[in-house]
């Protein structure tokens, strides 16, 4: 047993929702948490599994439409639990498919409706066109966010959610309003995979700091800037859409 303070990270539906690199977010978050002096403990939550008693951070990714339907049904049964966790300030990061399901609903391109759990004030419609390519987002909270998007969901924000940032390259939530992602309290939704966290440690730090403050009442950042991260960010930013 390590004497470092632990952080319990719940990885949502890794079996169905890990279509493209979302595993990297868990890998990166746990590395960053260790670098800050914590002992991360990752608990996978798949369809039918029981939620652990204590949760410090929740993180989830994207899947295919078929996996998303299975997950939507399971998630609906836990909507109350997740809303409670969110209201209590638990930091969460949900990407793509789970971003959509953390909103009110997702109406697929074929017209079927997947009910979401309404933690984020967003609604999504499946569109005919996919929004694909390198993305750069300006965020007041996290500075410049760099990633990659690949989705056909067309998401619109309501008043209770702020956008994560403004797109300076790419589509983001939809092709029209220039916003990317959504944030309500400590819950962040985004279309950026790529994976998001390895190249955007500011978001990892936010999740870790918020979790540490809630659980231990203090947070002393220890991890430093990683030169490889800086180079990867600069290089990805130069790539054409």
């Amino acid at each position, binding site marked *: 047993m390590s004497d470092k303070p632990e952080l319990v990270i719940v990885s949502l539906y*890794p*079996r169905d929702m*890990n*279509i*493209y*690199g*979302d*595993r*990297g977010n868990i*890998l*990166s978050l746990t*590395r960053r948490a260790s670098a800050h002096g914590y002992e991360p403990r990752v608990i*996978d939550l*798949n369809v039918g599994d029981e939620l652990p008693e204590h949760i410090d951070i929740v993180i989830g990714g994207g899947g*295919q*439409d*078929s996996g998303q339907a299975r997950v939507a049904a399971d998630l609906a049964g836990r909507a109350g639990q997740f809303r409670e966790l969110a209201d209590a300030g638990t930091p969460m990061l949900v990407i793509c498919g789970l971003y959509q399901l953390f909103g009110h609903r997702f109406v697929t391109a074929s017209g079927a409706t997947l009910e979401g759990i309404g933690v984020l004030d967003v609604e999504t419609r499946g569109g005919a066109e*996919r929004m*694909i*390519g*390198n993305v750069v987002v300006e965020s007041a909270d996290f500075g410049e966010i760099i990633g*990659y998007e*690949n989705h*056909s969901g067309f998401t619109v924000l309501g008043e209770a959610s702020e956008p994560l940032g403004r797109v300076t390259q790419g589509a983001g939530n939809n092709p029209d309003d220039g916003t990317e992602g959504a944030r309500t309290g400590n819950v962040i939704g985004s279309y950026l*995979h*790529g*994976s998001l966290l*390895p*190249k955007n440690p500011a978001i990892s730090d936010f999740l870790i700091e918020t979790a540490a403050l809630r659980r231990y009442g203090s947070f002393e950042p220890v991890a430093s800037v*990683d030169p*490889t*991260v800086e*180079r*990867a960010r*600069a*290089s*990805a930013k130069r*790539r054409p859409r």
Partner: protein
Amino acid sequence: MRDFFSAAVGKAVRAAARLRGGGSALPGLVVERLDPGFMARGLARLPLGVIAVSGTNGKTTTTKMIVEMLEAQGLTVFTNKTGSNFSRGVVAAMIGESTAAGKLQADVAVLELDEAHAMFFIERVKPRFTLLLNVLRDQLDRFGEIDTTARYLQRIADATTDVLVVNREDRLIAEIGDRTRERAAAGSGPEVREFGLAPALLSTFPGDDDFHVVPGQAAGDAATDPATDTRGAADVTLLELGKNAATFLIDGEAHSTPLQLEGLYNTYNAAAALVTVRAVLERAVAEGADTSARTTEVLEALSTVRPAFGRGEKLELDGQPLELVLVKNPAGFRLGLASFDAEGVAVMIAVNDQYADGRDMSWLWDVDFETLRAGGVDTVTGTRAWDMALRLEHDDVPVGSVEEDLGAALSSFRAQTQGRPRRIYCTYTAMLGLRKRLSEITDVEEI
């Protein structure tokens, strides 16, 4: 007469394009515009018709295996070996192989078809035989979802007239086989044949369904338990893997053969090629062709097939072997890492994100690089070199140097790894770029 004119125009465009150092598909594009029926007419005349090879991984090498095995049985085979697997590439190749009268002289065509462009192709030509290899996560920036790719492959299966060959161990492909079998039972649909793996080998070939498996933990949990494997025999089953050798179960009998091919996936795809060749030769014999379908002869031909360019291709540089291993998606990279022993070999990784590579590099996070930890990676290069370096850092793999420019990276890799065997894992356009530079300093087979 039409064929004559189209072929003549195509040959003229090809000559002109070559003078200007132009691309191989241009004559195909021109003829396709002038004479949209050229390809269908030419291919329809072939006595054994068209064999289509599709799937996300391994098309080029598998197509090469089928071609060489059929040629060894005395058949004249037309193929699109430049790897230009769009229809204009097929048309361009047809122009090159046609007689002055515009006639394509061959018994059969073996065509590698890109999943999406195959839709255009099958509207014009129905394959008699189709081989579906796999549906792995690849090029999701083009197709969006793996289910979309599977639907494309289903439509190729639906267009097939005689025999559909499917991978029994790939869930989505096996389902296409099941649906086709149901259709055949109802009176319309091709015969379905399978290639498969012995239960003991299932865990060696993790599919996308196994991706949730935690790093370090054995993959293949979702695979069939050998003790309860009640499935019937596949037409050809890969029983055992050796170093440059394999054992296949064919008609209840085990056949061992040496192979020039390396890599687990190439060996499994050899089983796929064997099923296809057996089906074609059986039909050929039934239709009176002067050939045989003896397993030993077919295996002998297989044993001499060398990998297609860049797919486990072996070169020599500074008196040491240099291997090029093409990696395009997580399953392919995982198999590439598992297929080649990391010990004692200098390693370079070259990752580009051009269209032909797939623009989205997120999949690198789905590959486990721990096997490279002990030896490290000497050089990382390509347009996404820093993403690759960051990925390796997350698996605690030491990296010697990072240099985005392929040429500079190759020079420093060469200088720093003198006297050691070398291996380069590379994406498609990085492979083409490196081959071009390598051809200036050592022997590289022309393509």
